[in-house]
């Protein structure tokens, strides 16, 4: 028996045979967890948000159109979940936690940052978390989820060409933040 594709499984779930969701969970929960970990910088928040995505898949299963593509649909849900999370966070938490995330880096201005070290990775992570949410999303999709441009375009609802320029702008922004946080100059 051949393995069913994600699209076929989700079409079944959408039609009421929800058991297929278990297999989709097996295939995708790690990727989603990685997506949210990079976006939020917190593994436990990532677990909550991943859980929420599967919950919404079940709840809104009928919005998946048969013949549709599962992965972009899943990431659209994930982006909505992230959006809701960010909105809630601005009321609930930011003060203490973000101060911790953004504490000043140990500056070592003499070095050229094309050579990355462990401390730089931590700084890079902090710089990343300071990017606007939309830039973080496009970068995570491109860099960590390794989605092809046309799929990213479908997730973000734009043209593939636009994705390329957004990725570039986000990288540029990230590099600026990194330089500022680490006190280094770009090579």
């Amino acid at each position, binding site marked *: 028996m051949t393995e069913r594709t994600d699209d076929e499984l989700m079409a079944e779930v959408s039609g009421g045979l929800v058991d297929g969701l278990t297999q989709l969970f097996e295939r995708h*929960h790690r990727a989603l967890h990685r997506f949210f970990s990079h976006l939020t910088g917190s593994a436990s928040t990532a677990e*909550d948000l991943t859980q929420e995505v599967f919950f919404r898949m079940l709840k809104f299963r009928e919005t998946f159109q048969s013949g549709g593509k599962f992965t972009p649909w899943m990431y659209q849900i994930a982006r909505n979940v992230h959006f809701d999370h960010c909105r*809630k966070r601005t009321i609930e938490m930011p003060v203490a936690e973000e101060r911790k995330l953004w504490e000043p880096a140990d500056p070592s201005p003499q070095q050229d940052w094309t050579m990355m070290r462990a401390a730089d990775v931590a700084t890079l992570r902090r710089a990343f978390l300071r990017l606007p949410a939309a830039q973080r999303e496009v970068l995570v999709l491109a860099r960590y989820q390794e989605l092809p441009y046309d799929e990213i375009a479908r997730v973000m609802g734009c043209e593939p060409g636009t994705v*390329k320029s957004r990725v570039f702008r986000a990288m540029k922004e990230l590099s600026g933040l990194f330089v500022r946080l680490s006190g280094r100059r770009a090579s």
Partner: protein
Amino acid sequence: MNCDAAKERMSERWLHGLDESRRIELETHLAACPSCREESTALNALWQAMEDVPTEEPGRQLRAGFEWMMQAYRMGVAESSVRKRIAAPRQPLWQLAVASLTLVFGLVAGHLYTARTQDQATIAQLGVEMKTMKHLVTLSLLRQESAGDRLRGVSFSESMSATDDEVLSALVRALSNDPNVNVRLAAFDALTRNPASPSVRKGIRDAITYQESPLLQIALIDWAVNNKDRGAMDPLRQLERQPELHPAVRVRLREAIRSFQ
């Protein structure tokens, strides 16, 4: 090739790599354009470095949560009540608790079923046992170390047809003392499910003065307004005097106080 096209091409290279002719076009531009060349070197290094940002693997909690959710969905018994609750999701942990409620319910029911076949107990006795069981499960969950368990306890309290006094005071305690904001929110939600007794009312009014979470403060203010609870006026004024209120809370609070006047 102009600079804009070169930037787009760099971005393309990061993700897909470039074929021979596209690569040569880009390199020709870089050779002639120092600013793009510098940008390309720096950003390539950054792209590379992003590889080193570690990610943690998801814990067992995630799978357990998913399984609870599926279980809750499948169990026709509690489906209607779960669906009603799920229609207004507050936040993930909370839903997990809702879902797990059904699981606990199933376990208890299973236990009782075994008990019945062994002891030939009557239906009436079963009813009593079920009630005691729910009571015990709720109270013991509310005392657990993990916030997830306490949330489950709060959810479970709602499956009891008539919530008893002991459970109500455990919920009031959770609202006032629980260190986890999700548990406090859930406890508040559970308390407001039934018309408030005088002691519950008092617990909620007290909470207005000392809860520090803006979400909870807003929920409490709304409760006072919706219940036209004039007795909440003093606590609301007290809250108003706190210097470090979240702006959203202050706005809501002013509206509330105005609505009482």
